[in-house]
């Protein structure tokens, strides 16, 4: 072992090891800083060139400075060494540096095992079906490199052919892997801290500034998938509330999370039950369809019926809810009225003046004031665009009277300010609107680009009423989604037939999320319900896992122990005769020829002496008299063997 471990690597093994590292680097590239990825790729390439073309070792003095540079650059970029992203960057960096000192089989083995580990780390960043499949394929080069380290194998001429046996191995491993995946008891609570939530994904934030959504509106990764009990609500009612924002400071709206107040009363007229699976957001808010009746487990309902989870959503989260889509929310405003009329002092004088003028004109007819504002947006020359002109200090004045272009954030913000100026309680609500109805999967796909902001106004007798000023400017935004609202402004992959294909393909991701990513401790406990076990506790699961492993190994052994003998009828018949003779106490010895054996049998079984002698002659003739035995003589021999009687010896 020690001898073979110290043998220098041959060219093929080194190629495969370098290829494996390149695959790891490529899979990690999306979340590495570009300069680090490029530098590591350059080091990898140079080292490969140096060993393959120059047949040289990497100089020893180079390794330590490189290691120090790696550590320093990671610390200076991320701020520390620990945590998900810096840890992954460090692992990839160390792996590439390991190639510098990879000279022997032992080095390559260490490097390739570590490569497997680093590949797994890539799944911390993306757990979609595509990512998982790619990472699994990324295992092939390390496996091939490990195979190539074994001496005395036939080396295929083409490098890619080395990868195929690994694929076969993984395919053969799949059944056992799936069993283990299903039965491995999950942890109810993590052993140590969950990955740090330091880095922010683009997603809904508890703060809304005009033009703050732009990044979100071009991010078309899925945000949530919703399945309904019964038919889905019509497109005009697909509003998913996340934050209700009360406070405006002249430039941004903010949500303040107050846990102490009970939720406001809700009179529901029509409710819908549905189940949301939310992609990780690293935030605590759980979007809900319109106004939820109650919070799901592990989350609580805030004052304005926002649902806030106890812990940030770091992995796919499933929750089932019942929501009212026709309702009266907070019929009596009570003493909180002032809160919904708050406006910063010294901002937007023209907007405030406009609001007050409406108040003067329409008096207490709040609905008429709302209509006046919507009419202004509809007929006032406003344009819907994802790239609006920047706004100054009096942002709403600039928007309403100068630029007159923007998207949902601008419209909802301006509308709410106008309403408050006119003395109508109003607020901004952010969340998602619309989505793609996947008829095959029976679910609604909501992407981050479906993020939306709208307003709610409080009208006497009706409670909070949703008003979507964006719809006044561009009704397509509500009925057909963001792509239809801003043609030509979205990236190429978000428009036209490609987008519709991506929407259809999403069903695979949905299945993947339901089946794999969403398979948690809770679902695992219900796994054995069809078999009559209501609650599968960890010890039952562990026992089942052990049984499954034993069964899988037994199946594997059955496959391994199966021998394929060439079909030789004469030999088969002789075997049959041997078995018959063995039952009478004359077993064939190892290394004993048929002639010696049958002669010995004839001597030991005098009663069958003649028969055995004849059988021996027939067999020898079959074997050696002709190059190809005739079929008659073969049949005669088989018949004679079949008729050979087994006489029990009486002792």
């Amino acid at each position, binding site marked *: 072992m020690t001898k073979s*471990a110290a043998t220098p690597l041959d060219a093929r093994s080194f190629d495969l090891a370098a290829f494996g590292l390149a695959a790891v680097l490529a899979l990690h590239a999306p979340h590495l800083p570009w300069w680090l990825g490029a530098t590591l790729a350059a080091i990898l390439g140079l080292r490969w060139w140096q060993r393959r073309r120059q047949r040289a070792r990497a100089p020893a003095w180079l390794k330590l400075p490189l290691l120090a540079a790696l550590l320093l650059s990671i610390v200076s970029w991320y701020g520390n060494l620990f945590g998900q992203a810096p840890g992954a960057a460090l692992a990839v960096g160390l792996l590439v540096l390991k190639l510098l000192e990879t000279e022997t089989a032992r080095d390559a*083995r260490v490097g390739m*095992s*570590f490569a*497997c*580990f680093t*590949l*797994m780390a890539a*799944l*911390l960043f993306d*757990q979609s079906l595509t*990512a*998982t499949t790619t*990472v*699994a394929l990324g*295992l092939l080069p390390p*496996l091939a490199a*490990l*195979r190539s*380290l*074994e*001496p*005395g*194998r*036939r080396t295929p001429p083409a490098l890619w052919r080395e990868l195929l*046996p690994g694929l076969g*191995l993984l395919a*053969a*491993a*799949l*059944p*056992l*892997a799936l069993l*283990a*995946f299903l039965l*491995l008891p*999950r*942890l109810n609570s*993590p*052993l*140590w801290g*969950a*990955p740090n939530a330091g880095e922010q994904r683009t997603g809904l934030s508890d703060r809304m500034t005009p033009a703050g959504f732009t990044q979100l509106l071009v991010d078309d990764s899925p945000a949530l998938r919703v399945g309904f009990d019964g038919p889905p609500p019509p497109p005009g009612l697909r509003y998913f509330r996340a934050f209700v924002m009360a406070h405006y400071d002249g430039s941004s709206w903010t949500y303040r999370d107050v846990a102490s107040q009970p939720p406001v009363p809700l009179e529901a007229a029509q409710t819908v039950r549905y189940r949301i699976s939310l992609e990780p957001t690293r935030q605590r808010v759980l979007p809900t369809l319109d106004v939820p009746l109650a919070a799901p487990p592990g989350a609580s309902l805030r004052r304005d019926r926002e649902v806030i989870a106890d812990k940030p959503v*770091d*992995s796919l989260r499933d929750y089932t809810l019942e929501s009212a889509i026709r309702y009266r929310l907070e019929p009596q405003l009570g003493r909180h009225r002032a809160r919904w009329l708050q406006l910063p002092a010294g901002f937007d004088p023209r907007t405030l003046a406009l609001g007050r003028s409406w108040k003067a004109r329409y008096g207490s007819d709040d609905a008429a004031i709302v209509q006046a504002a919507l009419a202004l947006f509809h007929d006032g020359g406003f344009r819907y665009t994802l790239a609006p002109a920047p706004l100054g200090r009096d942002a709403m004045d600039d928007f309403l009277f100068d630029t007159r272009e923007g998207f949902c954030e601008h419209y909802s913000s301006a509308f709410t300010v106008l309403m408050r100026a006119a003395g109508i309680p109003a607020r901004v609500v952010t969340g998602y609107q619309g989505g793609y109805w996947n008829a095959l999967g029976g679910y609604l796909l909501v992407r981050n680009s479906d993020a939306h902001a709208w307003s709610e106004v409080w009208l006497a007798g009706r409670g909070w009423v949703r008003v979507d000023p964006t719809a006044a400017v561009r009704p397509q935004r509500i009925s057909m989604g963001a792509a239809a609202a801003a043609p030509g402004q979205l990236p190429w992959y978000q428009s036209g037939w490609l987008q519709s294909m991506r929407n259809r393909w999403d069903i695979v991701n949905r299945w993947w999320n339901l089946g*794999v*990513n*969403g*398979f*948690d401790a809770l679902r695992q406990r219900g796994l054995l319900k069809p078999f009559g076990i209501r609650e599968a506790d960890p010890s039952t699961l562990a026992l089942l896992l052990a049984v499954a492993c034993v069964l*899988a*190994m037994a199946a*594997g*052994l059955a*496959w*391994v*122990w199966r021998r394929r003998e*060439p079909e030789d009828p004469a030999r088969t018949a002789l075997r049959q005769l041997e078995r018959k003779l063995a039952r009478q106490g004359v077993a064939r010895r*190892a*290394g004993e020829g048929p002639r010696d054996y049958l002669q010995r049998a004839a001597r030991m079984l005098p009663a069958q002496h003649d028969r055995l002698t004849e059988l021996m002659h027939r067999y020898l003739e079959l074997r050696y008299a002709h190059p190809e035995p005739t079929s008659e003589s073969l049949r005669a021999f088989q018949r004679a063997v079949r008729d050979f009687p087994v006489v029990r010896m009486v002792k």
Partner: protein
Amino acid sequence: MRANLRRLAQRAGVWAERRLPALTRLRQPEPLPIELGRRRIYIVPTAFGLGFGVLLLVMLVGALNYANNAALLLTCMLGAATAASMLLAFRTLDGLSLRGIRAGHAVAGDPLELVLDFAAQRARESVRLDCAGESLAFALQGTTELRLRLATTRRGWLVLPRLKLWSTWPLGLFRAWSWLHPQQSVLVWPRPEAAGPPPALPGDARERLRPQAGEELAALRDYRRGDAPRHIAWKASARHHDLLVKDFDRPEPRETWRLEWDALRALDREARIARLARWLGEAEAQGRRYSLQLPNERIDIGSGPAHYARCMSALAVLP
């Protein structure tokens, strides 16, 4: 530390050999052919395999801790592939058979060449053979012949050392091995003494012995059809009207050596054998005919490699 460990491992091996002959397969030599089957193939993880197992455990705990099902699935895949690689290691040896061993000839002290004839129906990769400190790695499709050099020390029957067939195919995580102890011995010839007197011959034979003429030129004669061109004496022919050919002194048939054990009473047993071996070698090299008389055997006059081998073997098996 390492030496201690090795000593401990050795002691465990000796213990296992004594107590568990079925496990180590060291006891009974078996007749050929030997086919490897499941009852005699053993598998343990290698050091690298153990390390890899620890790595898998770390990955498993990490995936469970972060409730990352994709990573968990990947870890399960890798673990199951590891288990499958164990079966493949077994399958590399299973059904492999050692069909025959051919031994060459060697005198004591020289390495003896063994040809091992292996066969298998399926193709095998990276099978290793360890034998008496020598190690080979080979791939196999159908049949293959392996050449081993076996060190020898003394004349006589040499029991073949046990062979270890092993493999860490395909990933180096598991080592499957099996011991082979073929019931076969090879004969090692005695080593001839380095120098010594020629055999004492009967008186009349001595007189017929002449100095060896070798390649000395004897005479020139006329060319005859069939003479080799290089024997033509060109210089002399130039002064003649015919071609002249150099006639060489044809060595007279050599004396027959009758080698006798009893004629060497003055020497001890091994010295006698060494001297006889030298004489046999010289006689064979000079193309003589010779016979050998031993206490228990008499080999009649003859010559040629087969005769030489017979005589040497007879010397080798002398008690």
